């Protein structure tokens, strides 16, 4: 009985084996330096991150998890692991979202006091933290909506020169109900003083009518719709690499075309058949794509 093997599958398997072999070679020459680190943010909240110290010849990577997730959430957790295993210094913070010692994904129903800006501030704090550790060539790898938007916003601030490159994976806008956003804006404008702390239940991201937060906090995220994101990408001063899965069903309609349609220096990598979370062996495709970018960065800019 004969078994037919798909040539594409064979190629991915070969690639994964090659990535694993290379990783093993690096591991032989590198000490294991992964550790859980904490830092007290200016607001008093203690934020945590996983830090892996790699070789100095390659840029340090900060992986940014998705909306309400943690450093342990895929695909960034596996990517961080892959990169750290290949010698890259990888810092995987868990955005505190104003939660002291946050270690768990936040529920939509939980009270969300964080804003997009607080996340960017926290990301900036971690960049500085790496800087204090001596890492001056930093690549931000974002994921999904808030992770990518925070990286883009930090790049747009242009305050952290050590951020050399931004890699956006599964880039998405923040999904929202525009009518609701309008309502929040209107409400905020008329009763801002009285309702500053009033909690609302709104739709945001994958939270459907249960995201609990104040109008202000809501609007800090709700600004980043499709156009705003495309604008951020287009106007981002930091070189940006965009990696998208062709099977990502979360992306808005014609999103790839819109991304690729932006006439910038940004490079877009499409991983065929990869989903939003780069499931299965596509995590290796993602890692390979990210490393290719990181290699190019080290070759070209360091």
């Amino acid at each position, binding site marked *: 009985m004969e078994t037919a093997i798909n040539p594409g599958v064979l190629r991915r398997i070969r690639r994964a084996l090659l990535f694993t072999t290379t990783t093993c070679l690096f591991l032989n020459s590198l000490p294991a330096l992964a550790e859980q680190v*904490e830092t007290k943010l200016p607001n*008093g*909240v*203690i934020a945590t991150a996983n830090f892996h110290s790699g070789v100095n010849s390659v840029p340090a990577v900060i992986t940014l998890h998705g909306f309400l997730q943690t450093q342990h959430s895929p695909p960034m957790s596996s990517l961080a692991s892959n990169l750290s295993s290949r010698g890259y210094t990888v810092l995987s913070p868990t955005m505190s979202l*104003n*939660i*002291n*010692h*946050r*270690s*768990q994904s*936040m*529920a939509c*129903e*939980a*009270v969300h*006091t964080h804003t997009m800006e607080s996340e960017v501030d926290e990301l900036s704090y971690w960049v500085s933290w790496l800087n204090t550790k001596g890492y001056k060539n930093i690549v931000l790898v974002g994921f999904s909506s808030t992770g990518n938007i925070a990286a883009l916003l930090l790049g747009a601030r242009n305050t952290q020169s050590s951020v050399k490159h931004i890699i956006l994976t599964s880039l998405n806008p923040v999904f929202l109900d525009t009518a609701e956003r309008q309502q929040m804006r209107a409400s905020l404008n008329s009763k801002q003083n009285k309702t500053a*702390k009033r*909690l609302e239940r709104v739709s945001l991201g994958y939270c459907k009518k249960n995201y*609990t937060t104040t109008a202000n906090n809501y609007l800090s995220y709700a600004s980043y719709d499709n156009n705003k994101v495309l604008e951020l990408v287009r106007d981002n001063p930091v070189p940006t690499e965009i990696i998208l899965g062709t099977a990502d069903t979360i992306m808005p309609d014609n999103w790839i075309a819109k991304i690729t349609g932006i006439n910038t220096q940004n490079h877009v990598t499409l991983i065929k058949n990869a989903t939003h979370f780069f499931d299965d062996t596509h995590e290796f495709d993602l890692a390979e794509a990210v490393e290719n970018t990181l290699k190019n960065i080290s070759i070209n800019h360091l």
Partner: protein
Amino acid sequence: MKYLIQKFGKVWPFTIKFYALSFIILMSLIFGVLGWSMQYKLDKIRADALEHNNQAATDELRYVINRLTDSIKQRAQSISNQDETRQQFFNRDYYHYWRDNRILGSGLLPGFLKAVELYSAQGLALAERTIGGMPKQISGKEKNNYVAYEKGNYYLFAFYPVSAIEDHLSSSRGFIGFKLDILSALKDEQHYSFININELKLSLKDGEQLPLDDIYSRMTFKLIPNTESMALAASIERFQRQTLFTMIVLYFLFYMMLSSVLSAPLARLSLHIDTLRKGKGGLLAQNYTRSLPVAELEKVRISLNDYQNKLEEMHHSLSEKNDELWQLAHHDPLTGIYNRRGFEEDWKHVLSVASGHRLGVALLFFDCDHFKAINDTYGHPTGDQVIQAITHALQETLRHGDRLYRLGGDEFATMFLDVDSSLALNTAERCIDAISNYDFSKFGIKEPVRISAGMSYAVGTEIEQLNRLPKQADAAMYHAKRPGKHKIAVFDSSMSNDTAVIFSNSINSLVFNAMANGESIEMHYQPITNLETGEAVYYEALLRIRDGDNLIMPSTIFPIIQDRRMEAELDIVVLGKVAKDLETGKIPPGKGITFNVSGPGLLDPIVIASINSLAVYLKQYTLIIEVTETALITQLHLASTILNKLRQTGFRIALDDFGSGYSSLSYLSNMPVDCVKFDVSLIRQLFEDNKQSIIIENLASMVIKAGYDLVAEGVETEAILQRVVQLGFKRGQGFLFGRPEKKCMNSAKLPYYNNIKT
């Protein structure tokens, strides 16, 4: 004890029903004890199971409460581990939202959890306003779990530390407290195996706080009925009831079966046997035909019936034998008529019937005259034929239904009930005539055969008289048999003496004693006078027996002697006395003596020898032997021979009582007689004005002409004397000449002879 033994003896042996009831009672007791034992064990098992279940329920309760507290602890741990929870200690801005929406409103907590609060490490509630009665502050003591009673409900307040995640080894960041409805919690907790959770009760005072560890002392509960054990117990009880019912039914059936199969048939069989037993030899009851359901009993029934049939056969056989015996006992084998036993039974019956009623009862006794002589002369076969002939003749004469009895020998009897005396007498006369007319010559008997009859009569109301009838008839019969009497005699009072004599033991004794030793016997001599001279020519020796001053006369002695057939013995005694008187010279010399010899005596060799012994006195005395014609007739040939020999010896023969018997001249001519003594009845007839007196006159004349000395008896008056002298009588005897005296007296000097002389 003795009383009990007697009581026991009265009821022993027991009946089958008693045994059956005893068996049933015994089995009932056994099953009762077994049932009680089973019930006792069941109760013990129940008690043990109850105790075990109580213990298990207590354990179950402890387990459930422990599990509940563990569960709450896990929930507390889970909630404490949430970032949101710990965030409350860091920032309380949205504490109420967290408590009310994220915890209580999450829908993830059970309904029995009524309130939750967070407390700082110092025990202060994070909330400005605690809910559900949760304490504002908890002390060290209150940090332990406790139960409180509030508004009708029991609540468990449980507190657990919330650790700080940033430094796991540090002390708790605070506490999380729960308030939960403990009874609802316990109800929701699990499915209970032992406790009926709906019946679980707590007893706490309002406001009282009880440490959770002490809750068990305040809890009361009921057990869940153990359906299996209840079903088992119900099954056992049902089984016991069914067993009891079955036992009762079986006992009832057993009793009924025993009653119908054994007891009742046995009772009927026993009753049947009782009936047989009470039959007392009467007709046996019918066989027990109803078949019995038990083989052994059926065999007994068949055997009993067989035995009964054999008994019945035996009974019939015995009855037949009894009849035969009765026939033999009551009938005379020679004649076939009733015998003395039959007579006595019938007589008793007649007495019982007639006593007290005005019914005439006649009793007739018959006796064949000179039957012994007939027997001796012609032999017993001929005598038997004579008896049979007499029987036949009498039966022919008696009325149909009259019974004839042979009392023995030649004695017969018959009895008439409800008759008058004349009819009875008439019947008796016809009987005598029938015998007289019967032709006995066909048996070779030449002499006439006669019977004598004695009759007695009484009316049933004369009970004493009725009882004396047999004796009276006997006396009358003997009276009738006397020489010179009619062949039939009806008892009258004059025969009382005879009757008395015959049946008087004292006189009998005197007679027999006299016969034995001869001391009381006296010979009295009556002169027989020469009618021509008036001088006594000889004396008749007459027997007397002395009884003190009284003398027993021949009329009393002879019936006794004849009844015992002792005539010959008496003759010997008399002859002895005569011989003695002759010897002693009591008899005047030259005179003569005439003495009586009975018919049997005449044929008796000893008597004859005694007579011959007197021959020595023939030279001095004239010795005359008096015999009656009846004595001669029965053995005429032999008697004639003997008398001839005696005549040849020198004795003279006188025919006594001539005229009282046959008075046949042909017989007289053939008899060796020298002297004829006319019976007093003939002498008296001479004074009757009838043909008979003429015949007697001619008879006397003929006898005289034939050459006989003719003696007239009963010469008691001058007239008789003259008459007999006139007729030619030469001798005379009677009171006119002298009564019998102990001494030989001369004849009385009669004037008649004075006239003759002159």
